C-alpha cells in the first residue's frame, strides 16, 4: 500500500471503501483513456467492443458540439462529421462543449481540404469587434 493510501485509510476510517474507490478509479481511468484518449485497450476487454463504445462517444460528442455551437457544422457542411471524428480521435474533450467547438474549429483551419471554409471559420473564431454574443448585459 502506498504512503498516500495508508494516510487516506487512517483518515477516513472506512478502509474497505477507500480501497474500493481507489481500485474502481484505476479501472475507470484506464478504460476512459482508451475510449477518449487513444490509450491502449485495457487487459481483458474485447477490443471490438471498446472501439464501438469509443465510436459511440465520439459521435455523441460530434452531435452535441453541433447542437451547442451550430456554426462550425453549418460552415463546413457535409465535411463537418468526418472532420470532427478525426479531431476527436486526437483530442480528448476538455473544458465543455463550447470550448470543444472552438478547439475543433482552430484545428480544422490547418487541415487539408478546409481551404474554402477558412475565412468563415476564422471570422467565427475571432469576429471583428469581438464576440458580442458572449457579452452579458448586467443591470444593478
Amino acid at each position, binding site marked *: 500500500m502506498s504512503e498516500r493510501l495508508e494516510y487516506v485509510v487512517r483518515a477516513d476510517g472506512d478502509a474497505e471503501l477507500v480501497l474500493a*474507490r481507489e481500485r474502481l478509479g484505476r479501472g475507470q481511468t484506464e*478504460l476512459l*483513456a482508451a475510449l477518449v484518449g487513444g490509450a491502449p485497450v485495457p487487459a481483458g476487454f474485447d477490443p471490438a*467492443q471498446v472501439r464501438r*463504445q469509443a465510436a*459511440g462517444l465520439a459521435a455523441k460528442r460530434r452531435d452535441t458540439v453541433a447542437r451547442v455551437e451550430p456554426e462550425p457544422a453549418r460552415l463546413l457542411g457535409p465535411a463537418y462529421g468526418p472532420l470532427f471524428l478525426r479531431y476527436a480521435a486526437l483530442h480528448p474533450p476538455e473544458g465543455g462543449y463550447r470550448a470543444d467547438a472552438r478547439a475543433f474549429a482552430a484545428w480544422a483551419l490547418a487541415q487539408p481540404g478546409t481551404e474554402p471554409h477558412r475565412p468563415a471559420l476564422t471570422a467565427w473564431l475571432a469576429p471583428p469587434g469581438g464576440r458580442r454574443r458572449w457579452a452579458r448585459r448586467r443591470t444593478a
Partner: protein
Amino acid sequence: MVRNFAGPAPALGVGIGWRAEIDTAVERLPGLDWVEVVAENLCPDGLRAGLLPESLRVLRERGVTVVPHGVSLGLGDAGQPDRARLARLAVTAEALGAPLVTEHLAFVRAGGHEAGHLLPVPRTRDSLLVVAENIRIAQAELPVPLALENVAAQLAWPDDELTEGQFLAELVERTGVRLLIDVANLHTNHVNLGLDIAAELDRLPLEAIAYVHIAGGRLLDGVWHDTHADPVGEPVLAVLAELCARTAPPGVLLERDDNFPPPYELAAELGAVRAVLSRAPQVRHV
C-alpha cells in the same frame, strides 16, 4: 435490509421527455400525464428565482407532473458525487415540485476526462460498495426519492461478477433506491452483449420500479444504436410487454431527443405504449 421507500411509488401514467425543440407539441399531446426534463438543461439560478421555461410553466399550471432526470452526476464514478451538482439537482426537484428525481447507474468521468455520455460500471463487490455509498450521499442531499436507471452499453467489463439486474437489486436492498427501467437499454444490451432479457427482468425487484423509459433506435450492421431519434419499434415494445407481464409499472416515458417527427407521430407512439399497457395484466407490486 433497507426499504425506505416512502410508500408505493406515485402513479405517473404515460409521459414524454420534454425538450425545448418540441415544447409546444408536448403541450398539445392528448392525454399526456407527465413529462420528464433533463435536469442539466434547466438553469438553477433561474429556478431559484422562480423562473421556468414558459412551456414547463404552462404544463405545471395544468397540473402535469414534471420529473427532473440527471445525466451528469456520475453515481457510478469512483469519487463521491459532487455536492454542487447534487445541490443543483435538489433545487431543480424543489422548483418543479417533483415527486422524485432520476439518474443513472453509470460513470461519466475518471482521471480528469469527461466521457460525455453514460458508461457502464464494472459490476464487482468494489463498485457495489462505492455506488451504494454514492447513492446514500445523494439521497441525503435530495428532497425527494431517487431512482436509478439501467444504461445501454456497447462494452462489457471483463471482471463482472453480477448482471446489471442483480447489481440493481443489491443497490435497492442496500439503499432503498428506486429503479427507472429503460426497456430500450435492455434491448440494446440484448442485441449487442447477448443479455437474456426475460432472465434479467426476473432478477429485478419489481416493487422498486418508479417508472419505465422507452425509446426508438436503429440496427446497423448487427449493432443496436439506442438513438432516441427513431420511432419506437416492435422489438422495444415487446420488451415493455415482457415487463408489463410481470408488473404494472407506475409510469412509462417516451424519450425522443432528435430528428423530431410531427406531433401526430409522437401521439401515435404514446398510443402504442398505452396499447401495450392495456393488454398487460394489472398487477401492481408494492
